[in-house]
């Protein structure tokens, strides 16, 4: 942390998300390539055979617009595809159909709430909500898969042409914690939109952070501190940046960034500018390493894809693509409408499966009627706690979950006669506990409560038991018996 007072980290992100459509991006081959025999899911288009004509998948375009809208982007009225050229065996045409100067969406933002800062005194007065600018959201095609065996590289084109959305942020991050929280939020949003599994391990979500540091004097440091996106606080970007590839978990993204910052600071302190390069990440050694750079990597020779006419989006078309309730809105609703604690609302809303299950339970007609009849105003909070504390599994069928929940929430009806008799008997039998209690050992009464509860098989209200016990112990009739 001390070292960072001299150098300010400048971190941006490139995020790829594979869309879950039925067909590929430019042909009718299946987009689901998982577990298929190699090269059984291809056609002349996705194999890049000469003369094959790519046609864009409308659903993929709509879903990219949806992601753009969810990230507060401006949707371009006119958008087109471009060819990005490079040679690599996973790319059969020698170019990737991507988007260059007219992407589908631009200039968005995503806010995160990183409560780690609530512990840091330097930020105690500032807002914890942070905005990070989204540069662009564009659509392209995925490449084939390579398998390196012995002296061969094997190529499988089943994944070639699967719709891939690229989300690029401005270099607004200055620490790896914010990056991790941002990515978790983004992943949750993507899942709420239902456009992708966004699974890091399966590779349907991929992250490439770019990391560099800028040297600042103290005055500049003050001005730029934690105001991402504020032009007044911005300084000239570093002359180099290091991209880290092949990271398959958010934890590793954080570790890779932390390692890079340390590595680069060590160089900068010796007066060396780190090399502009792409590095890989080794999660076992927790280090990044230089990779042989793709030759001519920066001579992509972008030009408009002549085989695909431009796309035009009317106001109406864009308006009809509706963004559903997003995790942050849902969290606010749970807090404001149902009185859930923030951390509970957070846990429930993190997983789409959990939050949808919760919604199904609380909106169920039987549950609603029960709530009204028994006047349980905080029923939703009870249900949330049952889910969070795993008192019932969300793997249960909805009807079974509801039945058990209602049993748990049923106000306890106490058999008064039975209870009174039991209490009298217990007080007689447990003179030691009674004496202890009289001597001021408050805890002693809990022993008695436990005994009563056991005898009543839980069918009694603990509060009633305590008050009855206390009353009976201090009952003079009883005293005289002793």
């Amino acid at each position, binding site marked *: 942390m001390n070292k960072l007072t001299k150098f300010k980290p400048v971190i941006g992100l490139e995020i790829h998300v594979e869309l879950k459509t039925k067909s590929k991006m430019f042909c009718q081959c*299946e987009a689901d390539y998982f577990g298929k025999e190699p090269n059984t899911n*291809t056609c002349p288009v996705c194999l890049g055979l000469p003369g094959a004509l790519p046609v864009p998948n409308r659903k993929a375009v709509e879903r990219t617009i949806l992601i753009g809208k969810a990230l507060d982007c401006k949707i371009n009225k006119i958008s087109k595809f471009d060819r990005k050229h490079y040679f690599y*065996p996973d790319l059969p045409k020698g170019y990737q159909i991507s988007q260059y100067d007219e992407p589908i969406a631009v200039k968005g933002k995503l806010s995160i709430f990183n409560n780690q800062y609530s512990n840091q005194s330097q930020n105690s007065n500032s807002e914890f909500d942070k905005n990070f600018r989204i540069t662009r959201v564009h659509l392209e095609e995925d490449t084939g898969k390579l398998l390196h065996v012995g002296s061969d*590289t094997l190529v499988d084109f089943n994944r070639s042409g699967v719709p891939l959305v690229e989300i690029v942020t401005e270099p607004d991050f200055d620490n790896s914690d914010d990056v991790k929280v941002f990515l978790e939020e983004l992943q949750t949003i993507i899942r709420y939109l239902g456009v992708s599994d966004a699974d890091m391990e399966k590779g349907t979500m991929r992250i490439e952070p770019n990391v560099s540091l800028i040297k600042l004097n103290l005055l500049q440091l003050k001005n730029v501190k934690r105001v991402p996106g504020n032009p007044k606080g911005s300084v000239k970007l570093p002359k180099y940046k290091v991209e880290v590839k092949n990271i398959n978990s958010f934890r590793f993204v954080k570790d890779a960034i932390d390692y890079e910052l340390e590595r680069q600071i060590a160089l900068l302190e010796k007066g060396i500018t780190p090399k502009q390069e792409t590095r890989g990440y080794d999660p076992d050694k927790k280090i990044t390493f230089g990779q042989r750079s793709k030759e001519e990597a920066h001579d992509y020779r972008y030009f408009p894809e002549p085989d695909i006419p431009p796309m035009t989006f009317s106001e109406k078309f864009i308006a009809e693509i509706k963004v559903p309730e997003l995790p942050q809105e849902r969290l606010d609703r749970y807090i404001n409408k149902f009185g859930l604690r923030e951390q509970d609302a957070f846990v429930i809303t993190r997983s789409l499966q959990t939050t949808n299950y919760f919604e199904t339970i609380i909106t169920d007609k039987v549950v609603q009627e029960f709530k009204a009849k028994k006047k349980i105003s905080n029923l939703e909070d009870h249900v949330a706690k049952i889910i969070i504390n795993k008192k019932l599994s969300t793997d249960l069928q909805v009807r079974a979950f509801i039945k058990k929940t209602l049993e748990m929430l049923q106000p306890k009806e106490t058999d008064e006669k039975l209870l009174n008799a039991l209490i009298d008997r217990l007080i007689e039998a447990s003179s030691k506990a009674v004496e202890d209690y009289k001597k001021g050992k408050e805890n002693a009464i809990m022993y008695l409560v436990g005994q009563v509860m056991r005898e009543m098989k839980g069918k009694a209200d603990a509060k009633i038991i305590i008050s009855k016990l206390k009353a009976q112990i201090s009952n003079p009739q009883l005293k005289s018996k002793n």
Partner: protein
Amino acid sequence: MKKIELTREDILHLAKLSSLKLTDQEVEKYCNQLGETVEFVKNLKELKTDVVIPTSQITNLTDVFFTDGETNKRVLTKEKATENAKYKKEKYFVVKRIM
């Protein structure tokens, strides 16, 4: 015809981008030939283009899409897919190890 002189480096760069292996003689040859070709293309400059809007599209079409999940009429069998490959192993295309 006057011609543009292309350097050896220009030709080697283009060869690399085109994934072509050229012999020394060929590099020499293309220095001349390609220069002539580029010079010929320059004839286009004689055309009056100041009122023509630049385009990358000549069909005047827009918004050509297909519907997700449409029947795939062009899918290739695995035998067909790798049929013309020079090197293959089982169902894979094979290239010399790259990493």
